[in-house]
């Protein structure tokens, strides 16, 4: 009993410290990262197209890697302070719990089970994966409604099978569904034109289109998004300030795109901010840093190093990458996507 009271007293004291100090101290995880001098972030034991890859100079690259480098810049001021720990899919959650990594940024979907039973804490999503259709371009289709009367191939027993069936039926699109046991069989059947279209996870479809077919122009990924799969950073429970930090990192990247701030023009705009929002974001007006226990210039440094969200996307998955994946849902709210940010006031 005494012990509990003691704990409460300590907690109350700890809670009152930021209020008294006026500015937040770095959170425990952030403090650990600062003391260590490196951010331990998840890589992959191999490659996950577009998200985690290795370039010709044996260095990591990809959307997830850029997020890690952004976080390292925000906390430590240097993207190269992100140390990427290669982990398999199965290993990522135990590795987070044992402290081998500070957080998981590894194409990880935010699910209720992980949030509750695994004791994780998820950031706001930085990517939405969606089930989509890919079709032969010579059919001339651009959206799923035009697949009426067509044959759709799917991988048997996956959630995609159910999602695609539900979507087509509820939109009254006549179709014949053909399921295949294995992904490779499915792709072979599609390429042999045994089906008009096939359903799969959007980023995977883009990879198949970019790599496994002779002519990527001959295939279109239809604009309809059948589902969403929110991809978030996962952290240990119990360090809300660190979650805040990661959330506002993602928010700053999206906000920068919304405001037209890129890695090229960030210094120019910071020197002469057109609005108070921009001034606040780039640290010309104080506030964005001290409330997270960071420097006020952190967002500016991050944008200068890795660019805004649109630049990261284009470089790794979008038009400047081999995959040419459309922004789709991952566009800003004002461009028809679902990306939005909290107000940075």
């Amino acid at each position, binding site marked *: 009993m005494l012990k509990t009271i003691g704990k409460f007293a300590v907690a109350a004291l700890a809670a009152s410290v930021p209020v008294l100090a006026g500015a937040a101290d770095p959170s425990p995880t952030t403090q650990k990262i600062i003391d260590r001098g490196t951010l331990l972030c998840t*890589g992959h034991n*191999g*490659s996950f197209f577009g998200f985690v890859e*290795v*370039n*010709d100079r*044996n260095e990591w690259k990809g959307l997830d890697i850029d997020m890690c480098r952004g976080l390292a810049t925000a906390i430590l001021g240097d993207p190269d302070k992100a140390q990427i720990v*290669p982990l398999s899919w199965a*290993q990522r959650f135990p590795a987070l719990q044992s402290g081998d990594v500070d957080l998981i940024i590894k194409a990880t979907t935010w699910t209720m089970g992980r949030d509750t039973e695994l004791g994780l804490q998820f950031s706001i999503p930085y990517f939405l994966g969606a089930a989509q259709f890919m079709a032969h371009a010579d059919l001339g289709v651009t959206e799923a409604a035009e697949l009426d009367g067509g044959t759709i191939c799917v991988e048997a027993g996956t959630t995609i099978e159910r999602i695609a069936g539900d979507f087509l039926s509820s939109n009254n699109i006549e179709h014949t569904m053909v399921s295949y046991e294995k992904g490779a069989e499915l792709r072979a059947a599609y390429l042999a034109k045994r089906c008009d279209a096939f359903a799969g996870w959007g980023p995977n479809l883009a990879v198949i289109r970019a790599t*496994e077919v002779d002519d990527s122009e001959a295939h279109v990924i239809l604009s309809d998004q059948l589902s969403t799969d929110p991809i978030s950073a996962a952290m240990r429970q119990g360090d809300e300030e660190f979650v805040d930090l990661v959330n506002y990192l993602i928010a700053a990247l999206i906000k920068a795109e919304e405001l037209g701030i890129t890695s090229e023009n960030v210094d120019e705009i910071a020197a002469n901010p057109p609005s108070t929002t921009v001034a606040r974001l780039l640290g010309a007006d104080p506030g964005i840093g001290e409330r997270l226990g960071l420097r006020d210039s952190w967002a500016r440094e991050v944008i200068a190093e890795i660019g805004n969200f649109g630049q990261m996307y284009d470089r790794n998955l979008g038009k400047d990458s081999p995959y040419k994946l459309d922004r789709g849902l991952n566009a800003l709210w004002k461009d028809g996507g679902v990306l939005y940010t909290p107000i940075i006031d």
Partner: protein
Amino acid sequence: MAVVSASDTSTEMVKAPSRMSRFIRMLQRRAFATPADTAISVMVFGLLLYILWLAVDWALVRAVWSAQAVDQCKVDGAGACWSVIDARHRLILFGLYPFEEHWRSTAACISIIATVVLSCVPAFWSARRLIPLWIVGFAAYYLLMEGSLIGLPQVTTDQWGGLSLTLFLFSSVVLLGMPMGLGLALMRRSKMPVVRLTATLIIDFVRSLPLLTTLFTAAVILPILLPEWLQGDKIWRVILAFALFFACYQAEVFRGGFQAIPKGQWEAGKALGLSQWTVLFDIVLPQVFRHALPATINMVVLTFKETAIVIIIGFFEMLASAGAAFGTGEWAPYYLEVYAFVGLIYWVFIFSLGQYGEYLKNRMKVDRR
């Protein structure tokens, strides 16, 4: 197949035939003796040659070799696209090791190979030579790879990878596992029930667990259980667990060798007044090694191939590096070439191991002398 007539062989007796003519005669007898034999042989050889030609045509004749010429790989009728190896071989050989420091990984790799090759040479087969050799070889590997102890930039073990990591894992596991296996086998033969039961328990316990589970526990679960100072680096935990796994199987191989030695030899040794250790080391063990050799080579070869399993605990060994080598948009279509390259590397090492095993078997033959 036709029966050889007596007159045929009698003329051959007069002068010894050259190897070539003997081969031709053998072919005649075995493959072309009757019209039906000839037809089948022609078909089979023809098919084999055709397949061989397809492979050569793809791999060599129509192949594209340089990374700059990658556009030619997309041309219709292009063969193997070795450009991917040209561009990505450093990733396959060295994993995530920093690009500027690759000479260190190369040197470390050579040091390990030299150590293994030298330990295979009979002239080195004494504890006074082998132990210093191993210490020097492994120390050289570690100092070069890690770097901070000899004033080079530090490279932590999670950045080690590729072929040099595969070789290091393999040789450490075998070197640690072999004596451990012998120890367990001896314990299992002990007359003291506690020692014997302990060994039996360890062997049966570890053998009942899949290798994957053992390694996953060592890499991921142990750090949660152990205090910080006992954890050590992930790579050492994994090597120790792998070596234990190897030792438990190898102990059973040795046990088979022990069981082939008649009890009379021990008794004869004792009757001559030799100590138990002398009998063991000078009489029994050399014979045990001989009996256990084929199965041991088998274990060693299996272990070499099984090192690829560490991919699941996040080590960038050769196969993981190969996956990363074609795991990027521009190189993704050429996974076949990458696998062929990695397969060739595995083949070179495993074939050499097998040939060395054959050599050892011949050398150890008693009736040779």
